[in-house]
């Protein structure tokens, strides 16, 4: 059952991600992207990491995609079609991607992974403890630092976005 589910999700992910990067209608592309993100969160749920699945859905589905849609709406007419990429460029890009993918897969498949035996699902509480722990294996420091980062990015985004022309 899980196997089938996984393959379905995988198929969705691959198909929609390809659709997302090749669709000429921008809003459709955004939508496909949303599907990909949702499908990925599905995989998170599949591996019993529901917390992350939820985060994925909220942050991406709720935050990022909306942000993108807003910006798309701000700068485009809804039905605007994107410019066609020259075929030569597509071929080269595809070639690089395929070679890169090939070498990555080759590296992966030549590595003898041994699955862990003590599989357990990831609990939110564990995550929370980790995030706030300051001893070994604790992640309080990155947690704090990323808050600074978010602050800085916020400041940056605001200061850029509010920018006006000097002469005005």
């Amino acid at each position, binding site marked *: 059952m899980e196997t089938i589910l996984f393959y379905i999700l995988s198929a969705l992910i691959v198909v929609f*991600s390809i659709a997302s990067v090749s669709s000429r209608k921008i809003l459709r592309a955004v939508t496909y*992207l949303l599907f990909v993100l949702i499908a990925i969160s599905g995989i998170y749920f599949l591996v019993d990491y529901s917390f992350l699945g939820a985060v994925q859905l909220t942050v991406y589905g709720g935050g*990022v995609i909306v942000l993108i849609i807003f910006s798309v709406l701000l700068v485009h007419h809804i039905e605007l079609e994107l410019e066609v990429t020259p075929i030569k460029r597509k071929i080269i890009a595809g070639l690089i991607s395929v070679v890169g993918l090939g070498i990555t897969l080759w590296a992966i498949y030549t590595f003898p992974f041994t699955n862990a035996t003590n599989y357990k699902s990831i609990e939110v509480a564990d995550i929370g403890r980790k995030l706030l722990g300051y001893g070994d294996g604790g992640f309080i420091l990155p947690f704090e630092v990323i808050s600074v980062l978010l602050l800085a990015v916020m400041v940056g985004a605001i200061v850029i976005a509010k920018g006006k022309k000097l002469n005005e």
Partner: protein
Amino acid sequence: MIEGISIYEILTLSSIVFFVGVYGFFTRENLITVLMSIELILNASALNFVIINTYLYPDFLQGAVFSIFIIAMAAAETALAIAIIINLYKLVASVEVKDTEKLKY
């Protein structure tokens, strides 16, 4: 751990997503769509971390936590990128890649 699915399959999936994102990054003619490709790339990485954690090293939650940070970071990045793109749009009324080719050689 998904039954019947080894880590190879999932890593293959994430790699495909990654390189689809890369392909998108290469070929999209619109800055916002390029940004979307980046989301694919970052998602692939996050997926990797989660899968590796659960499949191989479930004792520690490093990968799992890492992926949370990646998602947060992706959001921040996107926000800032969009701010900058919007600013560009204000200046040149376009978000096409071809309008960002003034600086060259």
